């Protein structure tokens, strides 16, 4: 019995963390966020491709690393901790899983082989399936897609977009096809860009199994939620670490503010709530990897619980920094906003909890 990340997983996780520390300082992130620096973004992406992040979930026979979701989750924590301005959840977690479960043999081999060589990269737009809002509507017919979808993830380096309709059918569109209009959605979180995409009679390749079963989309969303939770947990850890560090240096009333009990208790509360988040996160990924009966419940709870705790941590750790926490100068707000957006991505906590209730027959 061993509950926790393996040495290999920790090693991979640390490598990613180190890479981001060395290459994505707050100044680099700020430049990317202000859109004044396209090359840094590309350099960072090349860097993580060399680390193999794009290949974690691609089977070895298709040229990937053939690792599991727990691995991806471990890496997701590091990406959140370093607020990586990079695709991950959609491109490298949800897309390969959707293909694994949804594609026929020919589709599977084609896409996975190309993905492993970094020739194909996916943006992912599944919001039609789990929580469509007023503005959007998307339909497939006769291998054409029409309509509009919002909050497509990971479009930065995308060559293709993976979409779903209300029933959970999944289709793939090449960005070279005609009839595609892409619009930037500007969220508070400038470390990532989300898109609105409008399709007019655009050619689409439907993943064959997805017209019969929602297994593919359901698994992809579970995995996406777990990895989004990992991102928030990593970001929260970074915020708590910064708060503790700051509290030891900053002096008021001739004492380090960290010696004030009010400040200590805020930090203890953050740590006490955050610590079990690691366990539920890894447990959820493990349940997913082992196809356990409760895997959907675990994924839903990991996402909604960690979203709540991260929201609390993002507030309290900002408070520990006083006015400095509120400035653009310190850049703490990048983590705050990342956590804020993750909370809504792939389902807000209340929505996801309702799914947890339904999936246990309540």
């Amino acid at each position, binding site marked *: 019995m061993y509950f926790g990340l393996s040495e290999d997983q920790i090693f991979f996780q640390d490598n990613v963390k180190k890479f981001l520390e060395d290459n994505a300082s707050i100044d680099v992130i700020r430049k990317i966020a202000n859109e004044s620096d396209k090359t840094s973004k590309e350099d960072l992406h090349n860097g993580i491709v060399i680390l193999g992040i794009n290949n974690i979930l691609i089977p070895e026979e298709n040229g990937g690393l053939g690792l599991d979701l727990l691995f991806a989750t471990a890496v997701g924590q590091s990406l959140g901790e370093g607020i990586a301005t990079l695709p991950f959840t959609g491109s490298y977690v949800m897309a390969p899983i959707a293909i694994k479960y949804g594609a026929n043999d020919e589709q599977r081999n084609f896409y996975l082989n190309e993905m492993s060589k970094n020739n194909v990269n996916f943006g992912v737009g599944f919001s039609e399936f789990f929580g469509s809002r007023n503005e959007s509507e998307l339909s497939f017919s006769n291998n054409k897609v029409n309509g509009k979808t919002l909050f497509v993830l990971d479009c930065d380096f995308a060559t293709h977009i993976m979409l779903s309709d209300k029933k959970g059918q999944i289709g793939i569109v090449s960005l070279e096809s005609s009839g595609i209009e892409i619009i930037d959605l500007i969220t508070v979180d400038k470390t990532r860009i989300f898109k609105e995409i409008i399709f007019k009679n655009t050619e689409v390749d439907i993943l064959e199994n997805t017209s019969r079963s929602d297994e593919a989309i359901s698994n992809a969303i579970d995995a996406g939620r777990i990895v989004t939770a990992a991102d928030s947990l990593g970001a929260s850890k970074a915020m708590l670490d910064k708060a*503790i560090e700051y509290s030891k240096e900053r002096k008021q009333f001739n004492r380090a503010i960290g*010696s004030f009990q009010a400040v*200590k208790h805020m930090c203890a509360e953050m740590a006490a709530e955050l610590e079990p988040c690691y366990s539920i996160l890894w447990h959820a990924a493990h349940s997913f990897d082992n196809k356990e009966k409760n895997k959907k419940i675990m994924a839903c709870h990991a996402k909604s619980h960690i979203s709540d705790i991260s929201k609390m941590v993002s507030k309290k750790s900002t408070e520990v920094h006083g006015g400095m926490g509120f400035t653009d100068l310190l850049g703490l707000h990048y983590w705050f906003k990342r956590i804020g957006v993750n909370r809504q991505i792939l389902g807000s906590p209340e929505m996801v909890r309702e799914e947890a209730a339904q999936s246990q027959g309540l």
Partner: protein
Amino acid sequence: MDLNFGKEYKDFTKEVKDFCKKYKGVHFTESSKVPLSDSFKTGEIKMTRSDWQKILIEKGYFARSIPQEYGGHGGESDIIKSRIIAEEFAKSKIPPPMGGQGIDMLVPTLLELGSEEQKQKYIKPTLHGEIIWCQGYSEPNAGSDLASLQTKGELIDGNWVINGQKIWTSTAQYSQMMFCLVRTEPDASKHAGISYLLIPMDAPGIEIRPLVDMTLNAGFNEVFFTDVTIPEKNIVGKRGEGWAVANATLSHERGSLSDPNAMMNRLNSLIERMKQETINGEKVINNKVYRNKLMKIQGKVIAFQSNSLRVLSAKVNKNQDVKIAGMIQKLVGTELRHELEGFAIDIMGELGTLYENSPNIRDGGSWQIAYMYFLGLIIGGGTSQIQKNIISERGLGMPKEPKVQQGA
């Protein structure tokens, strides 16, 4: 990550399941004055509590790693087996082995720091439920600041003579013995002046006054000492080492105050209750607001349970560092349990306030009792605020509070 316990444990689980089937419905004839919970008062198989303890020890389901010469099973300690036993006993509602401060705190302390004579004399009858112990630490002026305790012990003619008062002493009125912190070195510094003494509760000069707690049970007591005289050898560790001896047991207590298996059972009972209760004809479980809140609590319980698996894992795999995960259990576990019990009252509304043997009461009023009981556990065994001091200073390495100046 590997959550399989392996074949040995699969077999063991089956063995325990069979045992539970065999003893289903076991109940006790009263053998000590400690009240039994209602569920163990009726059933087909009758025996004394002490006989039940002996069966459990023989099977190795209790006192597993305690040497036979002290009345234990004399096997290897096996934390996973302990967990399996706890889980299976809880599932099949078989009475668990006795717990309490003697078994959970004193026995580990004696095993670690007691003299050979003390081990021989006390451990076996304690394991058999024949000696009940109470913990005499807190005093009216020494709660969170326990080390400021003032109950005095003087060595006179080869005996300790004890004067002073303890308070909040749980189960003192049923106990044969007390393990007690007493100031024996008045000239030493605060922490260095304390000794750990073992006091028979029938010694002349002890007066016990039960204190009714908010559940309206007499859960704890005041204990007064007037020239109480006990042999010199009733000390654990050396003179002035009582603080260190006590700290060895405090860590045992904190682990036992927030059991995640019990919490999960309670959550499942709450879900059952929500399926049965209705508001204006609608089942509570179908009410969107309550459903959502239930799921929120379920998420927290699963996170807490997963955290305890991680702590368990670190006991099996020595190289795992889970310092903070262990430290937060008392704080998070007692607060969460209190929240869960309180939410159950909310879903019942006015019916949730019924108590004692009122008509229409649900589940024997257990939700109100536990809601209050867990507030007691939030305070007892180191308050939530003290836990936060410990987490921030020892876990997160934040600066210690500047020492408050002692009065002139």
